[in-house]
């Protein structure tokens, strides 16, 4: 066991969800299914934290690397490893599922076992995506994440779930097609699927542009970037709570992670060439997402559009090509996963009670649900980057990073923060304050201990990082410096 823990820790973390799926297959009682899933996800989170404690802060390369031949004919390996950036996303990926299980404890009434298996499947697949060192493995698991999410939307979703699910699959497939083309073209030239070796190879002049574009579009759709974002509000709002949490919390981050892992180190010159366009698209996305969120009457859609805005910050940071920007972007990805995940959990708590996502159906919740409103307020203000929450640290670093490039982006992005304050506080005003507008809102009950338990850890994370971000930033510092140095070569 000790050797398993020390030598194959990463594979163990990846395997736990899949093993959990098998275990779940033999269970039938509702209580058991829930608690076993919770236990499995908690074990995995604990393992991920153990991984973090064993992580060396000074090394810039991959750690905990494990390689195994898989399809030797094509040079495809099972190769996993983590650096600082992927470690943080692994942590995020393992923190959210237990909270999803808690959040859907009572709300999932039909086919519970299947639902829990899907949660585990998403978790497992995403862990591989964030740790894969082999481009083929990366792509395969990238595709696999789509399947459980689709089923979650279509089987357990809201009234428009079919259309939303189709749209989600359609966009995802378009993105992964481009990604597939890009990855195949890469490995055809370089003759390997190993991501680190891909970065060292020089590609032919004219192919470089197209490969970069294909990869970039593939990741941009997932993020999503303007103008490929329209799948997101539909998918988010129709998905069940756990689906929305995983979708917004972790799945979107695959796009940002892909940009840092593939686009930047493999094509530094192309990244520099594309940077102005991407930066402009990012700030437009920040403002556009903010405006769209202001117009929403549906709570989940509001949060979904706010994600578009926040993901604009992520690309803004990544394409400023310096430590401040990229570390800010990674922190923003983690922190957005936590806040938006919590927002969806909270909206889910409301939805469980009244079966309405309309802002207009609530009002005056503070009188009936003081605990809920306190936590909702915390995450609402965190969402627009109030200082002392982690979002502020991320946004501040991104703004400093991009200020080295061009100051106009700072000014424009600031507009996005103001818009963020506007839609979040306006939402809070209409939902939490004033007088209840419907009978359902008048009779609503405050959240119970289990529901509190689902969001309190996230609240601690948000404030903890906001006050003391050091450990997270130190974790990724060496890895980001490595990427930045690689990028500096492309100038």
């Amino acid at each position, binding site marked *: 066991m000790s050797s398993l823990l020390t030598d194959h820790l990463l594979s163990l973390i990846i395997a736990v969800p899949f093993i959990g799926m098998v275990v779940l297959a033999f269970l039938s009682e509702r209580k058991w299914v829930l608690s076993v899933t919770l236990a499995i996800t908690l074990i995995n989170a604990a393992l991920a934290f153990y991984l973090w404690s064993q992580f060396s802060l000074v090394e810039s390369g991959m750690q905990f690397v494990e390689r195994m031949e898989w399809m030797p004919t*094509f040079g495809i390996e099972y190769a996993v490893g983590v650096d600082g950036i992927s470690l943080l996303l692994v942590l995020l990926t393992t923190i959210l599922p237990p909270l999803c299980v808690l959040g859907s404890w009572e709300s999932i009434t039909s086919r519970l076992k299947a639902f829990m298996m899907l949660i585990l499947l998403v978790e497992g697949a995403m862990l591989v995506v964030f740790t894969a060192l082999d481009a083929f493995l990366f792509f*395969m698991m990238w*595709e696999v994440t789509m*399947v459980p999410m689709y*089923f979650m939307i*279509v089987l357990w979703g809201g*009234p*428009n779930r*079919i*259309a939303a*699910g*189709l749209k989600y*699959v*359609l*966009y995802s*497939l*378009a993105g992964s097609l481009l990604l*597939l083309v890009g990855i*195949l073209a890469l490995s055809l030239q370089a003759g390997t699927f190993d991501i680190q070796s891909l970065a060292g190879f020089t590609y032919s002049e004219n192919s470089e542009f197209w490969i970069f574009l294909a990869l970039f579009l593939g990741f941009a759709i997932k993020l999503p970037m303007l*103008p*490929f*974002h*329209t799948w997101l509000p539909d998918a988010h709002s129709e998905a069940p709570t756990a689906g929305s949490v995983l979708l917004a919390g972790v799945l979107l981050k695959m796009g940002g992670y892909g940009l840092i892992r593939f686009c930047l180190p493999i094509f530094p010159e192309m990244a520099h060439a594309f940077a102005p366009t991407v930066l402009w698209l990012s700030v437009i996305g920040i403002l556009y997402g903010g*405006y*769209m969120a*202001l*117009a929403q009457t549906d709570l989940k859609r509001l949060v979904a559009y706010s994600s578009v805005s926040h993901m604009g910050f992520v690309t803004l940071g990544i394409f400023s090509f310096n*430590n*401040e920007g990229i*570390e*800010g972007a990674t922190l923003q990805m983690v922190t957005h996963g936590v806040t938006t995940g919590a927002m969806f959990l909270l909206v889910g708590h409301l939805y469980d009670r009244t079966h309405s996502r309309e802002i207009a159906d609530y009002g005056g919740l503070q*009188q009936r649900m003081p605990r809920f409103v306190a936590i909702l*307020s915390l995450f609402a203000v965190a969402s627009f980057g*109030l*200082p*002392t929450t982690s979002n502020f640290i991320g946004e*501040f*670093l991104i*703004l*400093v990073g991009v*200020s*080295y490039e061009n*100051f106009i982006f*700072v000014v424009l992005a*600031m*507009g996005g923060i*103001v818009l963020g*304050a*506007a839609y979040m*506080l*306006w939402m*809070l*005003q209409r939902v*939490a*304050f*004033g007088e209840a507008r419907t009978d359902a809102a008048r009779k609503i009950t405050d959240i119970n201990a289990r529901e509190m338990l689902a969001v309190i850890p996230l609240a601690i994370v948000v404030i903890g990082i906001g006050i003391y*971000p*050091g450990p997270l*930033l130190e974790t990724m510092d060496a890895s980001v410096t490595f990427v*930045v140095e690689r990028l500096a070569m492309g100038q």
Partner: protein
Amino acid sequence: MMIYVLIPLLPLAAAFVLAIFGEQLQGKGQRLVIPAVALSFGVSFLAFLDVSANGAIRVQVFQLLNVGQLKIDFGFYLDQLTVLLLLLVTGVSTVVQVYSSRYMVSDPRHSRFFALTALFTAAMTLLVMSSNLMVTFIFWELMGICSYLLISHYSERSSAARAATKVFLVNSIADAGLLVGIILTYLSFETLDIPEILAIAQSANDIPTESLTLITLCLFCGAVGKSAQMPAHVWLPFAMEAPTPVSALIHAATMVNAGPFLLVRLSPILVLAPNAMMVIATVGAITALFAAVVSLTQTDIKRVLAYSTISQLGFMIMLCGVGAFVAAILHLIAHGCFKAFLFLSTGNSLAGTHRHLESSQEKPALSSSGLFIGALIMSLIPALVIFSGSYQFLWISQSSVAANIALWIVGLGTIFFTAMYLFNCVTTVFQRGPTGASDSEPVVRPSLFSPRHVFGITVVVAVMIALLIGVWRWFAGFLSPVVGGMQAQPASEFSAWLLLPLFAALAGWIIAYYRFSHPGPPHTGIWKKRLYVFFLNKGYFDEIYDVFLVRPTIKFSGWMWRRIDQGIVDRLVLSLGSASIGIARRLGYLDSAVDNRVTSVGTGSVTVAHWLGKFVDTAGISRTVDGIGQGADATGRAARHYEPHTLQHNLLIVVLWLVAALGFFYWIAG
């Protein structure tokens, strides 16, 4: 040195304990908060003694950020300016907490109130103590959110909820400017450490004046927001929705002072940007005058006090703008103490809905004399401050004669109007008595112009002048190490000009008294009426913002969402998808004719294309349904129709995709 960490830590700890155990401590929150804040005041006093004996102190706590070139230390920098503000903040906070323990009794959200006021105290002390501009910004915003949460204390009132949102949004726009300014400072100075920045600013540096002007204006933008200067002044009257102790603590005595504090803290940068200082002085002057006139016309007593705060803050900002930083801080502290006193002494008679001057049903009680004395002193403060600190005031204004005269006029006008509205306020409530009160009830009215009072006032004024001149000398000497610019020593000779402010205040009193004792038909003449209505409506700022800023933004966002996002962006991508299906289909047929190996890929893509076609159609159908709004019926039918297929299809398709991809790869590689 580390003992000074207790200053913010004690209120912070009290706030956390209350936040977590609030339900158990219901009604007893003050027993925790008052000792914490009072102890914090005690430690502040120690810091004051320490600093006045040994000079500035630095305390390093931990490193907040160390990324790339950016290094942010979380630490404290206590100098003369800081300790003065610490005393003000913790002192006023203690008094207000003691007062609130009676005022908020039996309030359902008792713990929340005390937790938030304690958190606010911690944030404000951290703000003044912070040694780094970014940390300053953090607590700047934290104060803002405390203010937001306290304004929405009576959250059942939708007016309170609306006011809270409005207040925070106005501030967040200004704070965006502040953050821009901080990042600009970082780009120019390459550090955000306040002592380092000040050292760079005071030494010879090659930072161009233009960028210094820009930095100063951006930082001033934050001060405009927090200190309610025009055009962002609209938030302060709305903030009066908060419970009265909050109005006293946050919206009159402490938080609003953050603006002048920031300007004085960064005064060495300010003096390097004379153009920016001109802007600051102008904004402050306009605000001071405008708000003074507006408060003359208001009938809601809390609103009168709010506009009076705006006016006084404008005065401080103006003093900063002309380089009289020490005078600004003296005014700040004097105003903070007296405004808190004023609010608290009126608090009981203002409780609840009886806030209108005309309809006040309260019998004048002991509190009335409090309001009375507070008002008297208030009206004299600007005069006295100018009087005592005018040497500095005169010094810098020599730069431009026109500006000098303009600022003098504005300053005197403000003093004049301040005296007038405060007189109005006091006499209307307590002399004339509440309107609508039946005559049968005997009303005790303090008579204002008894010889006793006149004598008392004369003595008070004389004593205060003497005190202020004495205090001023010590004060100017004490603060001189921290403020920028050339500091003129207080001259000893007496200048007749310095009597002008006193005369202005006196004139205000006399005119107000005349109007009070000779109530003629009010507001005759079309111009007079229009002007009155204009100021009664606070210059229509709220309406203008609402019509030209708020509503268009909301409307525009709705329009953009329906027309652009759903109408164009969404459809564009879908039509791109359907176009590619056609291509894929054709490619599939072509390929199948070529090679066996290719055939497999071809059939794969044909299947995919068929499937894509089906999916696009479905999506298209539901989209049209959504768009035209034929009802959920059709969507439901479409959904029922497609559900059984899509499930199996989808799994199949994903598998097919993987197989096709593998096949394609095999064909290429092999």
